[in-house]
């Protein structure tokens, strides 16, 4: 049966079209908020918007990799709390500790938990949502146990440690710098390295990956390991930024991160996820958080609006896809 030649390149791929739509939506929201409150597009507000979104963005990269492998990680909020707590306790005990060591400590602890989730999912074939739900509880409980229910407060932390989040590099806040570095590395990693591409291959078709001899389990493990490392990093940044470590730090934050990914077009059924979309998704979520107070929306509305935006995004996605499919059928001239 003759098929249409596929040689002409379409003007925009579907994913690009989706990202364009998201971009326009962001601009529209930005414009609307700007008209209500001119503070929105001031340099200082934009800086604070990105500073506040940086941690979310860093975590979203890891979550994207996990989602690409058809997984999900619900334990990251707890890992943030635990690593934050442990580094804060370390810093309180050894005030002279170089900030760099604190960050490394956080990353390593995070990777340990990531590795545990990775073993459960990749080696022992536990459903990701179940494995990480269990990990979430265990790690959250451990956070209370190590802290003995106490907080670590601002005065117990050295200025050097707090400067991790407040300091600047080339006039840009450290958090933003770190997030940019993470994004550049991630973009290179998933586009130009073998392992990065293979993670996508495994998510796209796990059976095929197995048959063609890709180390499927190791790649899935790797995704959780990276997610753990990034959560550990985020934990240190979080505690440095808010200058306090508590047992209930970042509770439920995994939902925001997953939301950012979904808004950014990462498919929960695996294999699909682009860095540019992810940036847009994160920024949109950041704007929602930043702009609502500026236009006098009570903070209690934030959660509901976030949820509705997510639902609207996924449903729009489905409707658009159905529409393209219907158009394709019409063109088949049968």
């Amino acid at each position: 049966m003759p098929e249409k030649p596929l040689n002409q390149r379409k003007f925009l791929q579907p994913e690009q079209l989706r990202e364009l739509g998201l971009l326009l939506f962001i601009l529209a929201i930005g414009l609307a908020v700007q008209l209500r409150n001119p503070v929105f597009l001031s340099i200082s507000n934009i800086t604070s918007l990105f500073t506040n979104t940086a941690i979310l963005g860093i975590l979203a990269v890891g979550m994207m990799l996990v989602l690409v492998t058809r997984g999900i990680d619900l334990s990251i909020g707890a890992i943030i709390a635990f690593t934050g707590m442990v580094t804060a306790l370390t810093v309180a005990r050894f005030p002279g500790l170089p900030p760099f060591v604190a960050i490394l400590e956080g990353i390593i602890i995070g990777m340990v938990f990531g590795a545990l989730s990775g073993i459960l999912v990749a080696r022992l074939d536990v459903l990701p949502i179940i494995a990480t739900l269990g990990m979430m509880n265990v790690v959250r409980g451990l956070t209370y146990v190590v802290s003995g229910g106490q907080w670590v407060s601002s005065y117990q932390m050295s200025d050097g440690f707090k400067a991790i989040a407040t300091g600047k590099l080339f006039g840009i806040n450290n958090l933003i710098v770190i997030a940019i570095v993470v994004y550049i590395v991630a973009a290179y990693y998933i586009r130009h390295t073998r392992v990065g591409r293979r993670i996508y291959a495994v998510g796209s078709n796990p059976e095929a990956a197995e048959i063609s001899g890709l180390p499927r389990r190791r790649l899935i493990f790797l995704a959780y390991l990276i997610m753990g490392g990034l959560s550990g990093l985020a934990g240190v940044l979080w505690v440095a930024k808010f200058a306090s470590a508590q047992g209930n730090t970042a509770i439920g934050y995994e939902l925001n991160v997953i939301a950012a990914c979904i808004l950014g077009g990462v498919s929960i059924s695996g294999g699909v996820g682009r860095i540019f979309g992810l940036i847009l998704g994160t920024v949109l979520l950041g704007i929602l958080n930043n702009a609502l107070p500026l236009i006098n929306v009570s903070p209690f509305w934030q959660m509901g609006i976030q949820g509705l935006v997510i639902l609207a995004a996924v449903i729009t996605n489905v409707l658009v896809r159905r529409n393209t499919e219907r158009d394709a059928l019409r063109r088949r001239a049968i």
Partner: protein
Amino acid sequence: MPKTLLELKNIVKTFPGVKALDGVQFNLHQGEIHGLMGENGAGKSTFIKIITGVYQPDGGEILLNGQPLRFSTPMDAQRHGVAAIYQHVTCYPDLSVTENIFMGHEKLRKVTRRIDWTRMHSEAQKLLNQLNAGFRSQIRMGDLSVARQQIVEIAKALSTEAKIVIMDEPTAALTQHESQELYRITESLRDHGVSIIFISHRLEDIERLADRITVFRDSRYIGTWQAGQINQNQLIVAMVGREITQMYPKHSKNPGDEVLRVENLTRTGYFRGVNFQVRRGEILALTGLVGAGRTEVCEAIFGIAPFDDGSIFLEGKQIQWSSPVDAQADGLAFLPEDRQKQGLILEWEIGKNITLPALKYFSNLFWMDPNREAKEAGRLASKLAVKAPSIFAKAATLSGGNQQKVVFAKLLIRNLKVIILDEPTKGVDIGAKAAIYEIIENLAAEGYAVILISSEMPEVLGMSDRIVVMKQGHVTAELITDQTSQEEILNAAMVAEVHHA
């Protein structure tokens, strides 16, 4: 004497409770197409997995160019020049064609070790051009048709510079036309010195392509023949172990009144203006190439997919089934094409599978009645001669043919008028095929109207009273079986003009 490239001797492989291969031998010459045949469960798949390094043999030896070795992983086999193209295409739908071709052996830049996209794209395109593919390597794999995906798989084998290519039922999902294309590509591979192991159920594939033929049966090696030395009948005997004298049962042709009629049925993008009717006690074959819209028409009738225009009449009354629930209530049954994914719950016992479409009949107001259920399931399983110890055996433990019989039993559990069978003998071995033909014939004899969707010409000609041929979503011919020929059907399926409305 041609050079022997690969030789396997006395290969044994056991799984818990099953001897999958029992002292099997095989040898592959340089630059030949070697057909490997056998019924389902004969051990072909296990054998292939041993050559490709997925499984390790428990005994025997493998010689490559006379050197004994073992393939410990699929990667290892690939390094030794073995590539496999599997039955169900194993691709990465979200990735580009280039990546699909090079996944596992990506081209890297020397110093930075980063992926060399320019080189990969250009080499991929070169391979595709070499195969006359006619599409670009940057395209997303998921956007291609199955046939084109298969071409990509072949390009992948070429890219590993494979010397041995294994094709596991590559034509199973292809149309006649696409099969021809695949034959051409396969032969050109051979002419370039590649050795090919070609596994197929279709006798025509083997007849057309194979230089030599090896047959397995019941996990054992039966024999190897030169292509000219064995005819179709002998081949069937070798595979089945007995002669099938009468493949198609004698069909008594006395159709009654019209039961089902469709008029001008249309679903945009799938089929348009389809008309046909089927009578009591009649077998109507619905044929055409895969993708001609046969399954879609029947799914629309059954209410599992929508249609945009046209009407359906059951016994003269116009009806509109919006879901299979309504269609079944009115006496329509549908045997789906994929018995494992659409027909059965493999994890369930036979009995529960059989009663699934008729749970209502086995419950009083609220409660299920397990005794009545077991009796009825047992009656139907015996009637269709399902080979199993009891109705509490899991469906997954049955052979393909017996599984199909269970799906037939599911249809019969309700009072029916019309039965639609979508490729009922697909992937069923020859022995079980004859049994299924007998079941179909008995259904017609009992007065059901049967619509048989089939791509196999002998089956269409052997079983039906009338034949409706579809091409690209349109009916191109309606023929009386006794007064037509294979040529006429193929002409309608592949050549006839389709008038676009």
